């Protein structure tokens, strides 16, 4: 078969790239080889547009056992325990088929975590939909939520936290990011690097079918009118088989049989075998006749590019095959030795006793293209409206508008569809700033949260990048955890567009600065470009997933008010920043100006000081202040507990709207028992923290002196209606 320009283009490769392939091979590739190149060289696998920027992220720290580059990141949480975690996008498949797209997204990220020897203990997700008014939004929301639940519930791992947002920018391109967190023994982590010659390469898990062929290239192309025709590439998830695969792998990992293990994710057999070989500096030879196939007459091309789910590749120590096979037999899973490691440094593909493809591993891996894409700095714009001239609005009306909006309504409709309690270690479920998961059989726990702020990132990418890291950090602090490390999922538009690439570069700059300052390294992540349709790109939406440690677990700290008549302290300074606020967006549809400034020094100082107070058991409840400002945060504390609060008017003469709805950063509300107030104030002063005593809790009513009085029951109702009526 002659490889025409058209075939090359269909594989998503540029003319330049094809030339390069011929140079590396010193000949023309055949179709199979071209397919393999296209799978490895697309954006999704090669990170060709992002790699140069990702290199700048801080990835080291005392707490880091394994940074980016493996299936997932690994951090140290003391004793012999390690936490393994990563986040990944499944945006395009979820738009085409929301249930299966979201479900297989969860399945994929779980494999990344248990491949490394960790038992998954928590799932999180960040899901972004178009405007609720858009015709597709409702069914996408339904499908995605039931897909996430369908997979996680069935496999039996609690889905404990996430975020759900609506914004027109996702009308034609939703985001579905899934994060998995696992627990492993520090000295029992498994890596993908191959070692040793003539070792058995073993295929385990489900059979290979024709599903998802070219899924990875799809994830690297923009949507257009023809996307519908790409539909058959959608995969169907099988959480039951994944559960078996997980148990079988964890069982095999108990002894020393495994040299290296790698899940078959995007680009299936191709990327898993190439990755293992390339990391080990070895060659790998596969006999494709042996690949367990679901359909008849599958070609080598289809086998190499299939993205069938629930499969793994393992390299075994000599003589361990029989014992390993027994384990997989027990779990009714395929187990076939399909190849071996070689010293040729080639990926050698055999079929019917002939070599049907042979490619130097390095041509697929380290020699894959890297682009220093052009980018331009964001031209930021100050807001043009005059706040004083806006139509006056009552605090109560504005608050109701916010609390009843899709973005701020309670997510119970969603989280009730997820099993949050299975495994019996969920200490704090979703609904708070972060979820808390106990380490099984121990009295310590981790806290987890995912966060993003697309509006902030759009208007000022550097500040936005910093802000999401800080917000995520705060969310862990408020539940009493020491933040340790993050994973990130970078959802952006078309990187060939200089403005988009600029958003990417600058958001990363912000993330980097914040992570460095807070000693909050990045240990894993994922990049998803080409989110958009026909030149209409989504807002830059980096998503941060953070993990923190609670060394000694007692009753969990949450943002639920605990009792009436305790004092409320506002930590951090309030300036009343309203640009880009949800007050303006929900009440005036104004989406202008710059996000609130992020002062890393204050973030760190305020957060660490609060953590001190929490560790001294001086805090009854705490909540960070983010979207919607002080009054929204107070409402959330009331709604979740049924306890109200009486807030005094600020002493200095300030505009009340700015004071109560401003989104200034580095702020928290804490509830303090009356007899602890002296101690708390002393510690805050010692640490040079700005704070205000803003009032106290009371029964039933949330109240601002002379301005607002609303019962917690009403607040609850307002906050819980939207999803049920949608």
């Amino acid at each position, binding site marked *: 078969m002659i490889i025409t320009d058209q075939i090359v283009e269909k594989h998503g490769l540029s003319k330049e790239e094809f030339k390069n392939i011929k140079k590396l091979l010193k000949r023309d590739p055949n179709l199979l080889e071209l397919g393999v190149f296209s799978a490895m060289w697309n954006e999704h696998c090669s990170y060709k547009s992002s790699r140069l920027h990702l290199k700048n992220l801080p990835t080291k720290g005392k707490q880091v056992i394994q940074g980016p580059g493996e299936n997932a990141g690994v951090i140290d949480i003391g004793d012999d325990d390690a936490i393994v975690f990563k986040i990944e996008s499944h945006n395009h498949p979820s738009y085409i088929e929301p249930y299966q797209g979201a479900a297989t997204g969860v399945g994929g990220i779980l494999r990344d975590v248990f491949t490394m020897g960790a038992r998954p203990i928590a799932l999180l997700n960040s899901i972004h939909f178009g405007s609720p008014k858009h015709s597709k939004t409702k069914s996408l929301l339904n499908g995605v939520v039931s897909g996430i639940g369908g997979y996680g519930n*069935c496999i*039996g791992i609690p889905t404990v936290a996430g975020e759900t947002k609506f914004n027109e920018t996702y009308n034609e391109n939703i985001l579905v990011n899934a994060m998995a967190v696992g627990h492993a023994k520090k000295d029992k982590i498994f890596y993908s690097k191959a070692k040793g010659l003539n070792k058995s390469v073993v295929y385990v898990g489900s059979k290979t079918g024709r599903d998802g062929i070219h899924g990875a290239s799809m994830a690297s192309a923009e949507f257009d009118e023809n996307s519908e025709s790409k539909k058959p590439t959608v995969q169907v998830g099988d*959480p039951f088989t994944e559960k078996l695969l997980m148990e079988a792998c964890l069982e095999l990992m108990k002894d020393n049989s495994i040299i290296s293990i790698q899940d078959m994710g995007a680009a299936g057999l191709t990327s898993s075998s190439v990755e293992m070989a390339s990391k080990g500096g070895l060659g790998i030879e596969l006999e494709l006749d042996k690949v367990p196939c679901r359909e008849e007459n599958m070609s080598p091309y289809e086998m190499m590019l299939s993205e069938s789910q629930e499969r793994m590749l393992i390299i075994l120590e000599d003589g361990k095959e029989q014992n390993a096979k027994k384990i997989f037999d027990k779990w009714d899973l395929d187990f076939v030795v399909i190849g071996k490691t070689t010293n040729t440094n080639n990926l050698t593909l055999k079929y019917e006793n002939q070599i049907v493809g042979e490619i130097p591993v390095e041509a697929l891996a380290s020699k894959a293209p890297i682009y220093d894409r052009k980018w331009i700095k964001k031209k930021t714009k100050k807001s043009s409206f005059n706040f004083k001239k806006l139509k006056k609005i009552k605090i109560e009306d504005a608050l109701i508008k916010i609390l009843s909006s899709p973005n701020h309504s309670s997510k119970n409709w969603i989280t009730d569809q*997820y*099993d*949050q309690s299975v495994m*019996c270690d969920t200490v704090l479920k979703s609904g708070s700033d972060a979820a808390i998961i106990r380490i099984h059989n121990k009295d310590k726990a981790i806290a987890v949260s995912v966060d993003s702020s697309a509006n902030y990132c759009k208007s000022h990418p550097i500040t936005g990048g910093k802000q999401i890291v800080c917000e995520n950090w705060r969310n862990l602090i408020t539940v009493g955890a020491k933040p340790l490390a993050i994973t990130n999922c970078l959802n952006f538009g078309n990187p060939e567009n200089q403005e988009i690439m600029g958003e990417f570069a600058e958001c990363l700059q912000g993330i980097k600065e914040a992570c460095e300052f807070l000693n909050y390294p990045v240990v894993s992540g994922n990049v998803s470009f080409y989110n958009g349709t026909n030149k209409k790109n989504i807002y830059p939406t980096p998503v941060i997933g953070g993990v923190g440690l609670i060394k000694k677990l007692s009753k969990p700290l949450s943002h639920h008010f605990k009792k009436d008549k305790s004092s409320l302290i506002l930590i951090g300074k309030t300036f009343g920043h309203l640009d880009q606020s949800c007050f303006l967006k929900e009440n005036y549809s104004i989406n202008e100006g710059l996000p609130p400034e992020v002062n890393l020094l204050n973030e760190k100082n305020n957060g660490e000081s609060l953590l001190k107070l929490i560790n001294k058991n001086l805090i009854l409840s705490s909540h960070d202040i983010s979207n919607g400002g002080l009054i929204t945060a107070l409402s959330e504390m009331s709604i979740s507990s049924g306890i109200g609060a009486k807030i005094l008017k600020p002493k200095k003469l300030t505009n009340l709207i700015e004071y109560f709805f401003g989104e200034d950063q580095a702020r928290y509300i804490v509830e303090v028992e009356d007899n602890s107030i002296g101690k708390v104030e002393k510690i805050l002063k010692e640490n040079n923290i700005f704070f205000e005593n803003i009032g106290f809790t009371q029964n039933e009513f949330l109240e601002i002196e002379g301005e607002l009085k609303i019962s917690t029951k009403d607040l609850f109702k307002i906050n819980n209606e939207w999803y049920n009526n949608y």
Partner: protein
Amino acid sequence: MKSSVIVFPGSNCDRDIAVALEKMQFKNQMVWHKETKLPKSDLIVVPGGFSYGDYLRSGAIAGKSLIIDEVIKAAKSGCLILGICNGFQILTETGLLKGTLLRNKNLKFINKDVFIKVINNETRFSKKYKKDQILKINIAHNEGNFFTDHNHLNELKDKNLIAFKYSDEKGNVSENSNPNGSLENIAGIYNANKNILGMMPHPERMVDEIISNKDGINLFSSLLN
């Protein structure tokens, strides 16, 4: 007291129940579904969680596994059997309990803490509870909508075989406190001999103060003596 927990491919609350049993001082053993012999046990638990992915009908395929014949034999000889959630579904599929569990009324998976009311507190499973005691307990299922025919329903009532009903916090049993559409809010039932209990709520999730509450403990302590 000796207990056995049956493990099917895809069971996922097997560890949870084992932890609860051990915490309550049961001598527990896990039994793989391909076994053909049961260890000597006073209590057999069929745990919750998606055996065989809940494919076909929840519980249907597990109901055909090798070990089930042994469970049936043990049940007939009076051994105590507890089926939780998927375990309840499996017990109905094997015929050890009558009735069946349909899709939830709202067609969605439901995970929540709900209130249930102890209807019969005079069995080996419930004697440590008070009659009409209200428990707050977690449910997590897709098919928990209990359904049965008239005759069986009458039998359940006449012979006092209803174990628990969904209620509100104050004990009112009504449509409003029915999370999944179950017939007469039924959350758990006994067989005629009262040595088999099937229930949708998860008592094993309610034995640890830090995680939830301790409303499930009395079920296990009832069994102990």
